[in-house]
């Protein structure tokens, strides 16, 4: 990757050579994906999993290569008239698409390696079955191809293929648990609701702008009336934010992610939800060319609500994968705040600041993909070793699964957004863009920006609590169940996949400048000027009258030096003795049992009490007295749950109304054949009347 100051002629030559990389890599990826699907269908079980895994990794590498080439400055476009009926296929790769392809490709490659080890350990059903293995390469392929689509029909076809493939993979373990089917239903309904919204929005846009390729939409966007543009944005934003997992359309996320096999959860959380962000940036900032402030304020409100609500629900969750799913919702909320801020600043005319905010949002997408994929893979490793997802029953995994615990800790460091993790870098950049956003005039801005900073801070603080809970309760102390006590470390392939992701996290944490120019080009693809924020060894923010620097490498070096100092000085002063083992403080009452340790539920209790109004937990106590006397208790049953309040308040009334409408319309079905035929006849006559009159 050319980093900065290479000569112009060399850059031109490199981009010439790189131009042919893109179609070749795309074709390779597609071919490998198809081969993988065939292999999944036809090979016997022993060969199926490694071959499919290797081919899927190949798809990831191919997609990643296209992404890296595009980030390096190459562009490519093609129109294939025959592939789709009527409209043909239009493909285009620019830096923005390249960024998302690179992320998806890298995640796919690492998770595919991990998935070989994961699927090999399960029985004939689940991820190792023919269906799942055949669909996995196709899913990976669609993840890599969706950003390449350059017309509405191509985009929607690829989007739907991605949704269908992921649905089949979510349902892979349906034989083992009944909750998988319910999760599949929720996921199917919500993703298709999103598709319908997308269809309506894009159809409206294409009809008004006079063309369905992205180039035509871009050119014709200014001829569309503001009301239609607003309607299109609202429809499209609803669909894309639902895919990204932002409230209030997030209900599929905490259901589908825990029930899917862990490699699939990792792919969904680290590559698929990003495509919601991609769609939003592409449509809102690029195709529609920006819009009035109310669009972006709404987006920021959604993002802020997602960030706080998501992380609160994660704090309450004791199911490890549900916790991680809600954490995805939180991080996507942060990204939406960044995208919204970018649009807002652009709407008010401050384009350099808008570029900075967008760069922060995109950087957070990259960092989130790295640490979230690793977190889900580690959770899958735990699940495979113990069969448990419940943090309350885990514990004591560190001595038994040291590599998994270490990698989980590395990813959790990124997730809590503290130095030296990678999440801190993107959050710092986001905060800088918001803090300096007060230069933009407007009362709305003055109110919204401090609130956003406060929401980001609150979500970061609670995220720290969440991951202390996940790491401390899940991995440290002593095992609280037999399964946890019998845990063994994951097989080498799974560790290799996780190691790749961990290396990615570490690289992003130490040298974010690797992304440097690529990020600028991605931001430039939507028409905003490059900010040069991420460069060299760290981050520099240089705007009109604003400057700030962050050098992650320096922070790590300083921390290491200080750690050595802190470890060395007492040794110098105190007498050197070996460490002795001692008992834990037990108040004189005998050794503490593992059951006395704080569980995830108890850890989250203070937070739940503080946010009681928002969470509205439900508590149920059933006392069964002894038959002879009402004062002697035979059994007490205590149940405590924290429901998803948005589901309760928003979804249940809608579902009840739909059920009511369905019941009411039963009266339409009288049973008489004449009636049914009559409906059709009257419909036809009315339609003809309208046609006749309308002409």
């Amino acid at each position, binding site marked *: 990757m050319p980093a900065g100051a290479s000569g112009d002629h060399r850059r031109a030559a490199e981009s010439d050579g790189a131009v042919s990389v893109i179609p070749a890599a795309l074709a390779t990826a597609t071919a490998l994906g198809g081969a993988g699907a065939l292999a999944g269908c036809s090979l016997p079980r022993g060969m199926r999993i490694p071959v499919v895994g290797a081919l899927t990794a190949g798809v990831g590498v191919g997609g990643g290569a296209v992404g890296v080439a595009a980030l390096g400055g190459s562009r490519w476009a093609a129109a294939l008239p025959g592939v789709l009926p009527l409209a043909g296929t239009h493909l285009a790769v620019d830096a923005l698409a390249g960024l998302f392809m690179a992320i998806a490709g890298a995640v796919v490659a690492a998770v595919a390696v991990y998935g070989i080890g994961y699927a090999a350990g399960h029985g004939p059903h689940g991820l190792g079955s023919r269906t799942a293995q055949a669909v996995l390469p196709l899913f990976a392929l669609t993840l890599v191809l969706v950003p390449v689509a350059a017309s509405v029909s191509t985009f929607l076809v690829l989007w739907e293929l991605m949704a269908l493939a992921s649905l089949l993979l979510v349902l892979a373990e349906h034989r083992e648990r009944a909750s998988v089917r319910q999760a599949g239903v929720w996921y199917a309904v919500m993703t298709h609701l999103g598709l319908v919204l997308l269809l309506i929005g894009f159809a409206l846009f294409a009809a008004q702008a006079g063309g369905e390729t992205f180039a035509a939409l871009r050119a014709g966007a200014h001829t569309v009336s503001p009301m239609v543009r607003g309607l299109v944005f609202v429809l499209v934003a609803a669909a894309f934010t639902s895919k990204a997992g932002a409230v209030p359309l997030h209900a599929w996320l905490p259901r589908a992610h825990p029930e899917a096999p862990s490699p699939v959860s990792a792919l969904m959380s680290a590559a698929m939800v990003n495509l919601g962000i991609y769609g939003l940036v592409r449509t809102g900032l690029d195709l529609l060319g920006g819009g009035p402030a109310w669009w972006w304020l709404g987006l920021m409100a959604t993002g802020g609500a997602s960030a706080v609500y998501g992380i609160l629900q994660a704090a309450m969750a004791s199911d490890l994968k549900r916790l991680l799913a809600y954490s995805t919702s939180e991080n996507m909320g942060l990204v939406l705040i960044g995208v919204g801020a970018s649009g807002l600043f652009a709407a008010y005319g401050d384009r350099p600041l808008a570029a900075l905010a967008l760069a922060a949002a995109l950087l957070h997408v990259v960092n989130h993909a790295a640490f979230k994929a690793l977190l889900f893979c580690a959770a899958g490793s735990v699940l495979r070793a113990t069969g448990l997802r419940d943090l309350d029953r885990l514990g004591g995994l*560190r*001595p038994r699964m040291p590599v998994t615990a270490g990698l989980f800790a590395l990813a959790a460091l990124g997730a809590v*957004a*503290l*130095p030296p993790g990678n999440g801190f870098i993107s959050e*710092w950049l986001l*905060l*800088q863009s918001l*803090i300096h956003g*007060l*230069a933009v*005039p407007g009362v709305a801005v*003055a109110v919204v920006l*401090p609130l956003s*900073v*406060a929401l*980001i*801070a*609150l979500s*970061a*603080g609670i995220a*720290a*609590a969440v991951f*202390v809970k996940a790491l*401390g309760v899940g991995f*440290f*102390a*002593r095992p609280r169940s037999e399964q946890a006590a019998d845990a063994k470390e994951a097989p080498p392939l799974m560790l290799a996949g996780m190691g790749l992701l961990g290396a990615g996290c570490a690289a992003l944490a130490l040298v974010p400048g690797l992304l440097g120019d690529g990020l600028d080009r991605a931001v430039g693809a939507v028409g905003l000027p490059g900010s040069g924020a991420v460069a060299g060894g760290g981050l520099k923010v240089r705007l009109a*009258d*604003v400057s*700030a*620097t*962050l*050098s992650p490498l320096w*922070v790590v070096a*300083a*921390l290491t030096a*200080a*750690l050595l100092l*802190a470890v060395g000085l*007492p040794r110098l*002063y*105190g*007498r050197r*003795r*070996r460490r002795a083992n*001692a*008992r*834990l*403080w037990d108040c004189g009452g005998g050794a*503490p049992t593992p059951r*006395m*340790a*704080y569980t995830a539920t*108890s*850890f*989250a*209790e*203070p937070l739940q009490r*503080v946010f009681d109004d928002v969470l509205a937990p439900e508590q149920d106590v059933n006392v069964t007295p002894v038959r002879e006397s009402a004062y002697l208790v035979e059994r007490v049953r205590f149940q405590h749950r924290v429901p998803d309040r948005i589901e309760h308040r928003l979804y249940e009334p809608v579902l009840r109304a739909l059920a009511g409408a369905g019941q009411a319309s039963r009266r339409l079905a009288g049973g008489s054949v004449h009636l049914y035929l009559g409906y059709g006849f009257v419909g036809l006559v009315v339609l003809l009347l309208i046609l006749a009159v309308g002409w």
Partner: protein
Amino acid sequence: MSTAVGYTAVAGQIVVVGAGAPLLTGWMRQVRARLEGRAGAGVLQPWRDARKLLRKEPISPVGTGPAFRTAPALLVATTVVAAALVPLLSTDTPVSGHADLIVVVALIALGTLVLALAGLDTGTAFGGMGASREMTVAALVEPTILLSVFALSIPAGTTNIPAIVHGAVDEPARLASPAGLLATAALAVAVLAETGRIPVDNPSTHLELTMIHEAMVLEYAGPDLALVELGAQMRLTLLLGLLSSLFVPWGIATSPSWAALAVALVLFAAKLTLLGAVLAAAEVFWAKVRLFRVPELLAGSFLLALLAVTASYFLSGAS
């Protein structure tokens, strides 16, 4: 020459915070004892305690792991890096470019986090309780701190601490403005919460159910305990120093000269002595609030910080 002064300033900051923290704690305890009518143990008692603990045998409870063993050192390390960054003595050091306020806040939060993990690693109920409460308080303090950072960075146009301090030295009127005062109050409450002082937490309590910080570190003994205590004391010193640098910046060396550095050292000691005495005196008259009243206190400080930001925006004449 200037770099020698700069490096000395950085080293001086670390040494002052490291060696001066037990002194400050001793001073505060002494002031408190005198106000309560007791003789007190003397200002040097924390140093004596540290020396005693360092000489003891290092102990690891059964069942704990590397998280427990490395937490004290990590705590001290994060505080040392933060002490190097915050311009306690001089704004013109070789590390001034890296001294971002958000980074300093994050480093302090990192210290809290590793201690919470250590508390959970013990597997006892007290460790978990302390960790749980500490993380809750830390989560609720974050918005206040970051909004105060926001408020402070508006007039200076950057989150770089030496730049903010430099700006405050040049324009003292900024500090007396409503925004400055509100930010001071908000940050003061946040500092009390972060360092675990009354009214949020009582550092000298012996009742486990009332502990937040102490419960996490209940299992530490010997040199580990010395490091943990030192870390906590250093955090207090650092945060009080941060408050004084931001809101009473006069005396901090703005140019690389030995004389300015010496003056800064003396003035820093004086400022912290005064602040410590005021805090200790206040603690005599306050009581620790119940754990579930703490969010109300922190919400109040959050409101102050929010008002600081909006006041700074509207009153600075921005349209």
